[in-house]
C-alpha cells in the first residue's frame, strides 16, 4: 500500500489539546463533575475554600470561584506557595481544596506537601488534573509517577477516580475525611461509566468488585478501570471471563479486598493503572500479596513503562504504551497464552 493510500485510510491524528477529554467518541460524559460537586458540597459549609496556581479553569475550580468568589484565592503560578498557603488556611480551621496539574503539584511542590501539609496532618485536599498519560504534551505535563511520590508521604490518602461518578461521590467524602488527601482529577467532559454497575458507590478506602470472571482478575484504578471494563466486554465475546476489582483509593489500600479476590480462584492477575509500573498500584498490590502469602497463578503489570513518554496524539500514545482498549486486550490474551 502506498503512503498516500495509507494516509487516506487512516485519518491523521493530531496532538490532542492539553485539555482534551479522554472520553472516546460517542461515550457518555458529564461536564466538570469536580467543580459541580464542590460547589454543591460547599453551599452550606463556609469553611470550604478553594485555591489554585493559575489553573482554575483547567481544573474546573472556576465554578467554585464563580459561586463563592470570597472563598477563592488565586495563588498565581507558584506551586510551593499554593501548597504552603493551603496548609496555612487549614491551620486556621478552613478546608482548602488546592488545584493544579498533577506534574506541578507533586513534582514541584513535594516538600511543601510533605512538610507543611502531611507532617502536621493538615486538612488539605490536593486535587490535581492531567494524571498519568492524559495529555500528549510529553513528560513536562505527563504525571506518570505522581502516585509513587505521594505514596511515600506518610498519612496522605490517595484517590485515583475512574469517572465522573467516582469524582462527584469522592468530593464530599474526601472533604469529610480528617487529614490530607491527594486526588487525581479528571476535568472537562469526563466519561461516565460506573453508573452502569448496579449498586456501585464510591467509598473512600474501599475497593469494589465491578464484575466477576473465572479466567482473569484485573485490579485497577483510575481510567484503567474503564479500560478494563471495556476489555472484559471484548474478551467475553470469546468466552474469556474477566473480573474487575476497582481500587480508587490507592492509600490506604483495601488489602483485604485484594487478597480475597486473588485468593478466591487461581487465575491470571493483571494490575492495570494509568501510572508508571514503578511505585504505583501494581507494586502496592504485589507487596500486599507477598505479605499475605497469597500467590496468584500469574501476575502481570499493565502500567506505563518506566520511561519518559513520547509526545503525540493521545490515542496513539495509549496504543504505544499498552493502555488502549485494543492493546490492553491483546496483552491480556497474550498473557493467557
Amino acid at each position, binding site marked *: 500500500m502506498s503512503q498516500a493510500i495509507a494516509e487516506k485510510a487512516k485519518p491523521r491524528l493530531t496532538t490532542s489539546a492539553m485539555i482534551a477529554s479522554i472520553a472516546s467518541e460517542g461515550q457518555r460524559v458529564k461536564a466538570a463533575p469536580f467543580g459541580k460537586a464542590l460547589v454543591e458540597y460547599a453551599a452550606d459549609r463556609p469553611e470550604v475554600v478553594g485555591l489554585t496556581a493559575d489553573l482554575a479553569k483547567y481544573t474546573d475550580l472556576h465554578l467554585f470561584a464563580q459561586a463563592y468568589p470570597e472563598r477563592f484565592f488565586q495563588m498565581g503560578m507558584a506551586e510551593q506557595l499554593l501548597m504552603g*498557603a493551603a*496548609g496555612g488556611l487549614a491551620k486556621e480551621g478552613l478546608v482548602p481544596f488546592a488545584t493544579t496539574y498533577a506534574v506541578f503539584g507533586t513534582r514541584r511542590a513535594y516538600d511543601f506537601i510533605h512538610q507543611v501539609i502531611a507532617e502536621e496532618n493538615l486538612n488539605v485536599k490536593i486535587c490535581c488534573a492531567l494524571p498519568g498519560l492524559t495529555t500528549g504534551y510529553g513528560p513536562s505535563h505527563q504525571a506518570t509517577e505522581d502516585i509513587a511520590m505521594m505514596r511515600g508521604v506518610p498519612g496522605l490518602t490517595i484517590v485515583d477516580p475512574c469517572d465522573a461518578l467516582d469524582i462527584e461521590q469522592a468530593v464530599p467524602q474526601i472533604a469529610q475525611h480528617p487529614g490530607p488527601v491527594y486526588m487525581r482529577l479528571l476535568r472537562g467532559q469526563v466519561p461516565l461509566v460506573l453508573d452502569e454497575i448496579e449498586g456501585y458507590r464510591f467509598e473512600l478506602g474501599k475497593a469494589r468488585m465491578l464484575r466477576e470472571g473465572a479466567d482473569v482478575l484485573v485490579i485497577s484504578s483510575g481510567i484503567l478501570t474503564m479500560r478494563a471494563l471495556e476489555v472484559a466486554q471484548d474478551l467475553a465475546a470469546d468466552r474469556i471471563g474477566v473480573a474487575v476489582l476497582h481500587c480508587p483509593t490507592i492509600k490506604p489500600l483495601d488489602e483485604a479486598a485484594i487478597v480475597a479476590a486473588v485468593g478466591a480462584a487461581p487465575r491470571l492477575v493483571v494490575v492495570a493503572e494509568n501510572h508508571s509500573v514503578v511505585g504505583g498500584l501494581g507494586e502496592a498490590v504485589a507487596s500486599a500479596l507477598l505479605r499475605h502469602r497469597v500467590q496468584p497463578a500469574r501476575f502481570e503489570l499493565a502500567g506505563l513503562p518506566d520511561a519518559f513518554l513520547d509526545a503525540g496524539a493521545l490515542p496513539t500514545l495509549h496504543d504505544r504504551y499498552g493502555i488502549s482498549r485494543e492493546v490492553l486486550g491483546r496483552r491480556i490474551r497474550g498473557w493467557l497464552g
Partner: protein
Amino acid sequence: MTDSAALPSTATQALAQAAWRIRRYALRMGEVQGQGYIGQALGWADVLAVAYRHALTLRPREPEWEGRDRFLLSHGHYAIAHYAALIEAGVIDESELETYGGDDSRLPMSGMAAYTPGMEISGGSLGQGLVIAVGMALGLKQKKNPAFVYNSMSDGELDEGSTWEAAMAAAHHRLDNLVCLVDINNQQADGPSSKVLGFEPLADKWAAFGWHVQRVDGNDLPAVLSAFDAARGLRDAKPRVILFDTLMGKGVPFLEQREKNHFIRVDPPEWQQALTILDASRPEPSTEGALA
C-alpha cells in the same frame, strides 16, 4: 512612628532584662546538649524579647487561644532561641529546658508544631514559613479575626524561591495582618550570606515587591521596639517586613568575636564561661508590669 529616644526607660529596661533572660535560657539549653545554634539565639534574643514581651498578643497558658497573634518559626534550627522566648513568655516552664534535645522531650533540636506548646509550625525546611504565613493571614481575614501573623526567618531563606512567591502573594492579597521578621546575621551554612548568594539591596527588593519595609539594628532594643510598633500601627493595606541586622553571639564577647560560622563551636567549659560573662552584664532590674 514612635521616637525611640522618647520611650520610657523602664520599658526598655524591662525588655533588656527579658532579652538577658532569653540569652541565659538558651545558653543553659546549649549546655545541656553541648551544642545548639547559640550564635543565632544570642543574636536574635533582642527581637524575641520585644516580640514576646511587647508586641504579641498571647495567653501564655492557653497557647492555642484563637485570638493570639501567630509567631511562625520558619528557621526551625532557631528552636533553642524560640524555646527560650517561650519560657520567658510563660508558655513553657523553665524547668523543662533541662530536657532540651533529649529523647521524648517537648523541645526537639529543630522546631516542630506537634511537640511544643506555642510552636505554630514545623519549620526547618527553609523557605516555608512565609508561604504558610500567607495562608494563615488569608485564613484570619476570612474568619474576620484581627490577629497578626509574624513570620520569623533567616537571611539564608532569602535564597529560596518560595520566599519570593509568598512576597508577591502577600502584597497581591493586601495582607496587612502579616509581619515578616528577617534576621540578617549574614551567616549561612557555606559562609557569609552575601557571599553565598548576594541579596542586597534587600530593602529595595522588598519594597519593589510591594511591602512596607524597615531596616534596623536588631540588637538596639529601642529601635527594635519602634520597628515593631510601626509595623503594627501602619494603616496601609500592605504586608510589613522588618529587616534586622544582628550580631551572632551578641552579649557574650568571646562568642561575638569567634570566627563566624553557621554553627559556632563551643567547647564544654565555655558554656559556663559564657553564662558567667552574661551574669556579669545583667541589666538593671526594672519594675515589672511597666511594659505596654
